[in-house]
């Protein structure tokens, strides 16, 4: 198995560490997204894998082949890594066919162009120049060009960020499908959590030059490592509470914890921060529910997106008037001012509060 493996990779610019001990393992044929905020070092990570940057210490290897161990460096042209940069970076002076054939020997090259362009759905575009293509088409040519050399690994550097929103979803789906059909090992770096969660088998989160977690998308979203990460991956309501016997006591009542959390809980009765995702909250109008079926609350505003809407809701039971985010479908979004009843869909995620004891002051306002 040719697993792409990074062990203890360090890299810095001007004494400023950019990669600070990165460990990452990408199995053959899998699709891993590296998710990180601006400046987290994710582009550097990709450039290190491609061979455009040297590392200071650590090891980068593919199966038995050592790419870089801080001393010797395998030059990029001998790594067989397909690289698809942000804007596609097509050679502007070459036609589509010549771009795709760039890494191929002259004769064999011509025969392979057809099937490659067919795979990315651009048959008939051989004689176009890059500037005659749309952004999505350029991305697909860049992908075909990278796939032409039959790479061991394909690297995608925020390849969809330059596309407009309407096109992005389509191109994403197409690219993911092409890569899966080819069975190529893929590493995607992005700051867009939707992109990471929807495209990849594994999502590795890069923070301050380190991979802090590497998990399947569902797991990462449902049981994030900490409150910061929960907020980074999507909207989050964070509530103070206490945990005992697999149940969190919060202002919204007793909420059942996710499986396995209770067993690992450090000390019963210790303060906790409880994560309730906006889609775990449900609102109903008072008329529709018999008495006692929920927590009374008031809608203070509403962001309407069409397919769904996000409400800000203040429950009477929250002493400090903290507002909670609630995601509802666009069809049944109550207007601002409406009095509603809240219910929570357990199980929920929780972490021990930073300093034990009373967790009330550690609870952060809902991240959006």
């Amino acid at each position, binding site marked *: 198995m040719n697993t792409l493996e990074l062990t203890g990779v360090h890299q810095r*610019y001007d004494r400023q560490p950019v990669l600070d001990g990165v460990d990452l393992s990408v199995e053959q044929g899998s699709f891993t997204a590296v998710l990180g905020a*601006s400046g987290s070092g994710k*582009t*550097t990570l990709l*450039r290190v894998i*491609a*061979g*455009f*940057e*040297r590392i200071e210490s650590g090891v980068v290897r593919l199966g038995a082949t050592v790419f870089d161990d801080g001393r010797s460096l395998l*030059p*990029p*042209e*001998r*790594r*067989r*890594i*397909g*690289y698809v*940069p*942000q*804007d*596609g*970076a*097509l*050679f*502007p*002076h070459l036609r589509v066919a010549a771009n795709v054939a*760039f*890494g191929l020997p002259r004769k064999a090259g011509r025969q392979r162009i057809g099937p490659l362009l067919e795979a990315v759905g651009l048959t008939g575009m051989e004689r176009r120049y*890059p*500037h005659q293509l749309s952004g999505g088409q*350029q991305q697909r040519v860049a992908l075909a*060009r*990278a796939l*032409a*050399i039959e790479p061991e690994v394909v690297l995608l*550097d*925020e390849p969809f*960020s330059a596309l407009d929103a309407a096109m992005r979803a389509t191109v994403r789906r197409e690219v993911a499908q092409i890569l899966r059909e080819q069975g190529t090992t893929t590493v995607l770096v992005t*700051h867009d959590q939707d992109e990471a969660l929807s495209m990849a088998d594994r999502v590795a989160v890069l923070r301050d030059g380190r991979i802090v977690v590497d998990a399947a998308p569902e797991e990462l979203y449902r049981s994030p490592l900490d409150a910061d990460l929960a907020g980074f991956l999507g909207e989050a309501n964070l509530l103070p509470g206490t945990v005992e016997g697999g149940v969190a006591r919060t202002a919204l009542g007793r909420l059942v914890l996710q499986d396995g959390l209770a067993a690992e809980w450090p000390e019963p009765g210790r303060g906790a921060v409880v994560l309730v995702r906006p889609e775990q909250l449900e609102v109903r109008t008072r008329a529709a529910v018999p008495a006692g079926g929920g927590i009374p609350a008031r809608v203070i505003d509403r962001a309407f997106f069409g397919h769904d809407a996000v409400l800000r809701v203040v429950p009477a039971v929250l002493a400090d008037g903290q507002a909670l985010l609630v995601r509802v479908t666009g069809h049944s979004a109550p207007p601002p001012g409406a009095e509603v009843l809240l219910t929570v869909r357990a199980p929920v995620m929780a972490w021990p509060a930073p300093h034990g004891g009373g967790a009330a002051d550690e609870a952060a306002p809902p991240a959006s």
Partner: protein
Amino acid sequence: MTLALPGRRRAPRVLVITSGVIAAALLVPLVFLILQAGQAGWHDVFRLVFRRLTQVLLLNTVQLSVLVSAASAVLGTGAAFLVERTSLPGRRTWAVLVVLPVAVPDFVVGYAWHSMAPALHGLTGATVVMTLAVYPLVYLPVAAALRRADPSEEEVARSLGLGPVETFFRVTLRQIRPALTGGCLLVCLALLAEYGAFEIMRFQTFTTTIFSELTTAFDLPAASGLSLVLVLLGLIVLAGEAGVNTRGRVSRAGGQTTHLRARHRLRGGRLVAALAGMTALAGAALGVPVGTLVYWMVSSHASTLPGASLWGALEHTATYSAVAALVASVLALPVALLAVRFRSVSTMVLERSTFVVQSLPGLVIALALVFFASHYAHRLYQSATLLEVAYAILFFPLALVCVRASVAQAPRRLEEVGRSLGRPPWQVLLRVTLPLVAPGLAAGFCLVFLSAVTELTATLILVPTGVHTLATQFWAYQSNTSYGAAAPYAVVMVALAAAPGYMLTRWFNRDPGEARA
């Protein structure tokens, strides 16, 4: 978000050594100038430098620089504003007409005015002629700055209650100030290097004095002493220019602002005044030289036309200029690659050092090369090679600016993609970098070629005995006031410079999108 981080990439040794040798070769004239002064005796040199004549020359130079810079600033900015920001009829045509004088050599402008108005001479004459010859150096950067400047700043100023005049002085002028100052400093460098126009206008400056010390008095110590002063002045101006370039960065949040701006509507009296002003400027700067040349061509038609010698001169000029242009633009490539792709303090110093040549007038470079050849390389003395070397050194910075711009526009990422597709560095250079940089190399060639065609001073000193170029023939005839015989040479010279000049304007005005993926 993907910043091109200055990685720890070490520059290939071949590139460093090549660029180092080129930079050293460019500084050779400066070294020889100092050696020469040393050989003449520093005592003599100091005595010659600190005499009254130097004071007079200094005063003349400063007076002229102030007058011409101020006049060029007003004419250049005014014309640029009318073309870029008002509803002036025929803007595209005016934009070409007011830039064209840059293709007419300064000494031809001088000749035209002198033959038309012989009374015009001295400081007044020099100011008029030089302003008309060099104001495009201000016009071009200011017009570019006006095109680039964020229109919303002016709109905000207007919405905050400022009138158009106040807006111009408090907002627009600030936006274009780096371009305006930079243009004025270029004017100063041009004035320091100019010789022919001053000789015609009988206005004494460093160059005219050095030239006569050298060719009539054969006083080498005096010539080299004054050259050192001239170089020092040039370095001061150059330092000022570097300061403007680093301070002139304007920060702007958000992307490019290319939205259409409303132009100032010109009506009635203002429209008439604007049209009259533009007509007068184009007439004086372009109409007079062209008209004079045509007049002398026509009126001397009866006299014998120098057919054969014109062809010979054309051939020499074209050959020398083409060789120099080829050498300069090819040598600019390694320096540009090193400076752009492997940016570090040392590569920046290396690149900057080649720009020091800008402060060396052609006369000084010629002088240093004469000293070099007569002492160390007799076979080169009076050879075409030496003249070509002089051109290549003199105009190297022009080639570097063009090549550097296109290297900077060719994203490094494309080279990286080439590498990751399995191509070794030399193949990437041939198949990716060179095709991308080719327009810059061509532009560098054109710019050096047209500058060499219209060069006079170094040519007069270095041209091999018995060989005539367009510039030397023109100069010889006009010195004898044989205006009619001189005219054809100037016409051919301007025509020879016009073709690459036209290609250059296309390069500068091309759509930036064409170069992008």
